[in-house]
């Protein structure tokens, strides 16, 4: 840019001190300020176009207060609790089945997507599968599954399994790429077959990561299976949706408390197991 400080005779005088500035990630300082300005303007425009006035905000708080008031105390009638319990069992069962099914499908995809052990065409195919399954949000998959398979837990299982593939394959493939190839190379050098070097050289190195990831995904799937019911794909979400529609906010509160309790337990179990295996 500018060269204000360079003197034509060289840089020997004390008046001719060299200056230094940290280089910016943008091409120059003008670009930098222009980008910052543009980002701020975009945020301001977004807020303005939503037309959320301070008055609207305050009345919103009022509604919120009324809602919480009608939620307390949570509904604990035995018939309600029984139905809640029933649906919660279904929710957990859905998560279990979907985790097992999803991981079973993920395994070949993960090995295919590990650059160090997979041939190039398989690698690209597997990476493509992963990207595709990650691109669509779980709820959209659940809606499609409900349309295709009808209401009920089967649709939920399909949707959650589908989402498991993208997550599990991607992370497990990364673990596979991180293994120490030295041991694998040595096993190969003894004359072992491809399959043998896989089960003898690769698998032992990733078993703990596999267990950790499986439990982690199980805990995520429990959370997902509480929501897919909103679109009719089984589990406790169905109950939640119905309670909202009937304005049974005290029952909604009871369901939310149950969800929070189950998710916390799942997260705790998952954390303990992961700490143990790693």
């Amino acid at each position, binding site marked *: 840019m500018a060269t204000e400080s360079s003197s034509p005779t060289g840089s020997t005088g004390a008046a001719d001190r060299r200056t230094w500035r940290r280089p910016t990630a943008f091409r120059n300082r003008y670009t930098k300020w222009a980008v910052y300005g543009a980002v701020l303007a975009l945020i301001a425009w977004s807020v303005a176009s939503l037309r959320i006035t301070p008055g609207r905000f305050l009345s919103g708080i009022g509604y919120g207060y009324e809602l919480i008031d009608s939620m307390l105390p949570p509904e604990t009638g035995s018939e309600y609790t029984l139905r809640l319990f029933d649906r919660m069992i279904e929710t957990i069962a859905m998560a279990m089945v979907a985790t097992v099914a999803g991981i079973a499908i993920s395994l070949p995809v993960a090995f295919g997507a590990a650059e160090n052990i997979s041939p190039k065409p398989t690698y690209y195919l597997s990476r493509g599968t992963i990207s595709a399954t990650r691109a669509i949000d779980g709820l959209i998959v659940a809606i499609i599954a409900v349309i295709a398979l009808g209401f009920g837990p089967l649709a939920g299982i399909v949707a959650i399994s589908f989402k498991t593939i993208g997550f599990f394959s991607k992370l497990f493939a990364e673990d596979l790429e991180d293994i*120490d190839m*030295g*041991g*694998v*190379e*040595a*096993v*190969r*050098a*003894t*004359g*072992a*077959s491809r*399959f*043998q*070097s896989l*089960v*003898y*050289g690769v698998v*032992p*190195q990733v*078993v*703990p990561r596999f267990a950790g990831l499986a439990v982690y995904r199980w805990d995520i799937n429990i959370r997902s299976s509480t929501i897919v019911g909103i679109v009719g794909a089984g589990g406790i979400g169905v109950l939640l949706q119905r309670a909202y529609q009937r304005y049974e906010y005290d029952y909604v509160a009871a369901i939310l408390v149950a969800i929070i309790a189950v998710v916390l337990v799942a997260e705790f179990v998952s954390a303990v197991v992961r700490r143990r295996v790693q």
Partner: protein
Amino acid sequence: MLETENLGKTYPTGDEALRDVSVRIDGREVVAMIGPSGAGKSTFVRCINRLVEPTTGSIRLDDTELTALDDDELRDARRNIGMVFQEYNLVERLTVMENVLSGRLGYVSNWAALRRNFPPEDVERAYELLELVGLNGMEDKRVDELSGGQRQRVGIARAVVQEPKILLADEPTSSLDPETSRDVMELLTDIADDRDVPVLINIHEVDLAEAYADRILGLHAGELVFDGSASNLTDESKGVIYRGEEPPESTATDPDWLSGPDDESSARNGQDAGSDRLPAED
């Protein structure tokens, strides 16, 4: 018997790691290959079991032409080549016994490998080798609990349990302290004697090479510039190997420092050396 002829390797990047290396290793010889970093020592050793694919030349192990083999044949051939690595290259999460037995994988089915179901004679052999390398009673330890020296012993046991026709060692002492390095070298030379198998060790510690090897090969910039007994390794020859110096004139009358046990494994010294001083053959 291992014989390489005009073995060359040029990496896809264009680096010529190895040029025209012809060597013959026989009997129960302990051969040390020395040379500066990047001289092609590792490339040479890895070409032999084709962990690195050579670009030119041939490799024969007894009567098998290794460079001509397809995948299945190569697997069978690799069973006859034991290899010891610088970083031990063990499978860390497996037990000592599993690592040793992995040397027998070429002889068992996939299913047996999965179930760690090896024939009793393999297991017996593995126990014997663990005693030989001084790891008796350690079979159920996981390898990542062992020290560097112990790990290298497991690596050696894994290579020897193959009952190979040649034992290759790629910088087996570089990750070890001097004391353990000597133990490992001693173990390797003992194995050559006891098992009647030639051992090719690629090593950068010249004193270890001189102390333990019957024969020394010197590589400089991918070319074989020395092939002779340890006692013939003079300061001049070290200069040739490590600094690429031209061999001094006086040695012209004493060809012994350059010529190996047989004419086949004669050394060449590239474009800059006067070919009149070399046992020319082409």
